[in-house]
């Protein structure tokens, strides 16, 4: 740690920090466009010019004669940084005037408006007007940059963050700067559009509205989006994300910086893979089949008094509870629960403790774990090869579920070992409680045959499946955006996810269903449950703090693992 003075505020900074990071620790913002924590330094935007000086051994202060870029200037003991002098302020004004020289000022139709650093910095550090009396240079918009990316060329400030990203993080190097001087433009190499699996990140990296996501283009003005911290459920990396929604509709996911989980970025599979949560085919109502009836009777026909149907859940859950108890009484060891790796730790705990609480001879198992291909490592080499293990900056994992580690911990506590539901063999039990929640069809032949046609089949899922077709009870559950809870990623990092929208129609988040089913008093409260789980299950003791913070906490078992990402 070295002592640095930023605008007379003394602060302890890491000797590896640059001036921007040191100033941030002192609560002083140094505006910047081209610099990004996980990319190399180019110092090309000139927005972060500051006055830097040093303290001589005799205590006198010697300031440098010229302004220096804060992103490129390292600090040492006694470094003095000034961002509030008139010299710096004039420089910031002039830089912004230059950057805006050919900017079309089309904020009214620009998707970035509201979260644009040109807007923010102009407001904070810029001038109100331009002295340009010449026609602005107009450039053609480029829709060919990528399947998901459009480039509004005239809004670009040539920070080259996007170019550096494709060279340093994805390693695919599709983007480049063409031409020179005031003719500089971002473009792709001919016939190599920017379609790599991390391409969506260049839209987030772009500090202005030049690179826009075609998926989100003109869908919503950003100031209407409400944000919730969440975790991507696309793979077991468990990227920290922010869910942006308005009026109960999710418009986009964006990565949230988390050095513990994935760094600054996320993959396009996760970024655009959330759309299933608004699928029309989702199970929207709980359904109950009368034991004697041959056809699927709806709730409406099992209970004739109409007023109670405003909320079918109390009736459905009371009936389900009765059926579970009867089934366990008749054949306790023939009652099998299938926990899904898409459940949160809290939900798995609620269900496991409820069923085991009735009879400990019941069996808890783990549902299918979707594995697609092998881990995809970045940055790619020039021929598309994977990097060496110590050079990996981003990993898209083959295990396409968010919470295998957490569910296995629950199973080890309640069952003693992890039993795969698929390995149970044909029609091996008389009663099943199957939890789904997968983002796509998950019922494979093995699990289908293992379940067979038991005397009681309860399915808690979000999409219809062969199992839900023949189930006696279907509980309409919630997707990841509708749940509160904890996911534990492949490296044992327990992260809190927060509900951002309401489930469709009469569907309910799994935690709420299981809370009522287990007859526990009160509402589902993830934080309170985390405290309870942490004290009861030693393997998960790390989550006993309740509040996991923005970055999550690592389970004790995985404490020695290095952080997953350095990007």
């Amino acid at each position, binding site marked *: 740690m070295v002592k640095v003075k930023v605008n007379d505020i003394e602060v302890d900074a890491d000797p590896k920090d640059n001036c921007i990071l040191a100033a941030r620790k002192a609560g002083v913002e140094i505006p910047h466009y081209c610099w990004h924590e996980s990319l190399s330094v180019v110092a090309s935007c000139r927005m972060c010019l500051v006055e830097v000086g040093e303290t001589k051994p005799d205590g006198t202060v010697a300031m440098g004669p010229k302004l220096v870029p804060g992103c490129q200037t390292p600090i040492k003991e006694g470094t003095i940084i000034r961002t509030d002098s008139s010299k710096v302020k004039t420089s910031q004004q002039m830089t912004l005037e230059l950057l*805006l020289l050919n*900017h*079309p*000022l*089309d*904020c*009214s*139709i620009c998707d970035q*408006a509201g979260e644009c650093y040109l807007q923010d910095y102009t407001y904070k550090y810029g001038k*109100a*007007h*331009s002295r*340009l*009396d*010449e*026609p*602005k240079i*107009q450039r053609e*918009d480029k829709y060919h940059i990528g399947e998901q990316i459009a480039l*509004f060329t*005239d809004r670009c400030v040539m920070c080259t963050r996007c170019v550096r990203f494709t060279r340093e993080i994805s390693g695919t190097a599709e983007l480049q700067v063409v031409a020179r001087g005031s003719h500089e433009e971002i473009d792709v190499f001919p016939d190599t559009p920017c379609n790599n699996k991390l391409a969506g990140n260049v839209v987030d990296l772009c500090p202005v509205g030049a690179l826009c996501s075609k998926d989100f*283009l*003109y*869908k919503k*003005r950003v*100031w*209407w989006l409400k944000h919730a911290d969440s975790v991507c459920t696309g793979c077991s990396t468990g990227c920290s994300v922010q869910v942006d929604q308005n009026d109960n509709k999710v418009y986009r996911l964006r990565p949230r910086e988390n050095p513990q989980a994935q760094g600054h970025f996320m993959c396009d599979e996760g970024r655009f893979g959330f759309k299933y949560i608004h699928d029309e085919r989702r199970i929207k109502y709980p359904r109950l089949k009368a034991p004697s009836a041959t056809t699927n009777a709806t709730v409406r026909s099992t209970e004739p008094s109409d007023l109670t149907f405003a909320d079918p859940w109390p009736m459905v859950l009371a009936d389900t509870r009765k059926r579970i108890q009867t089934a366990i009484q008749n054949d306790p060891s023939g009652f099998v629960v299938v926990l899904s790796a898409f459940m949160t730790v809290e939900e798995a705990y609620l269900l496991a403790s409820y069923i085991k609480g009735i009879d400990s001879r019941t069996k808890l198992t783990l549902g299918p774990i979707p594995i697609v291909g092998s881990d995809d490592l970045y940055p790619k080499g020039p021929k598309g090869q994977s990097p060496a293990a110590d050079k990996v900056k981003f990993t898209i994992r083959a295990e396409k579920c968010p919470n295998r580690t957490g569910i296995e911990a629950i199973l080890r506590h309640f069952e003693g070992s992890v039993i795969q539901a698929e390995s149970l063999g044909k029609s091996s039990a008389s009663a099943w409680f199957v939890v789904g929640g997968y983002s796509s069809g998950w019922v494979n032949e093995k699990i289908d045959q293992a379940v067979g046609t038991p005397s009681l089949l309860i399915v808690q899922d979000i999409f219809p499946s062969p199992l839900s077709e023949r189930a006696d009870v279907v509980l309409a559950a919630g997707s990841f955006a509708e749940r509160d809870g904890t996911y534990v990623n492949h490296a044992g990092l327990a992260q809190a996810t927060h509900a951002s929208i309401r489930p469709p129609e009469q569907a309910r988040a799994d935690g709420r269903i299981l809370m009522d089913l287990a007859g526990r008093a009160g509402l589902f409260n993830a934080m309170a449950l985390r405290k309870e789980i942490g004290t009861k299950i030693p393997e998960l003791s790390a989550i006993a703090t309740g509040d996991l913070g923005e970055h999550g906490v690592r389970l004790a078992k995985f404490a020695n693992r290095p952080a997953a990402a350095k990007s």
Partner: protein
Amino acid sequence: MSEPQTNEAQKNEALKNKPSAKKSVKWGEAPKLTILDALYLPAIVSGLATAVRHAVSGKATTRQYPEVEPEIPPNYRGVHRLNRDEAGRVKCVACYMCQTACPANCIEIIAAPAPKDDPHWKDRDKFPATFTIDELRCIYCGMCEEACPVDAIELTSIYDLTGMTREEMIFDKEKLLSVFDETVKTGRDPVRTNRGKLGPAAELSSTAKDAPPPPGRGKSG
């Protein structure tokens, strides 16, 4: 009677002693009621006198509406319209500023990328696919007009808006454009401003004055 007054007086005194009040607020005293004022009789008499004076003066002030339509002041805020640009397209660029500014939540826009393949729309990036205003919910405050950066939405002097159903009072884009077509003909509601370009920097461009103003983005020539 006396106690609440004291409280009130104390509160006023406390307010006056606030440092901010001393600087910026000029404090006045409400005149105290005399016994005559408290009777209210003088006020009643003077009111009656005004009524009698008007009754005998012979100047009728009844307006013969609807036979005679009133003169509407030019700043009257009536039914909305969506202006057209020189090419006859909707001037609106779907920036949602009016919807954001609207305190009554009566405007709903769905934006779409402009049909770039159509030469008619070549210079536009974004346009409103739908634009609806619930005229019943609107409070006619004129904030939308003030917020509009391209002077696309304006309030006309149409004051006698009626309808048989709630549905027909929800004006869509076509209806709002037709209000424009109607009102520009009558001459009562000229297009109030004709800036057309976006942003102050676009204004400063010298050549922009000669070229026809681009309707959408501020690509001033």
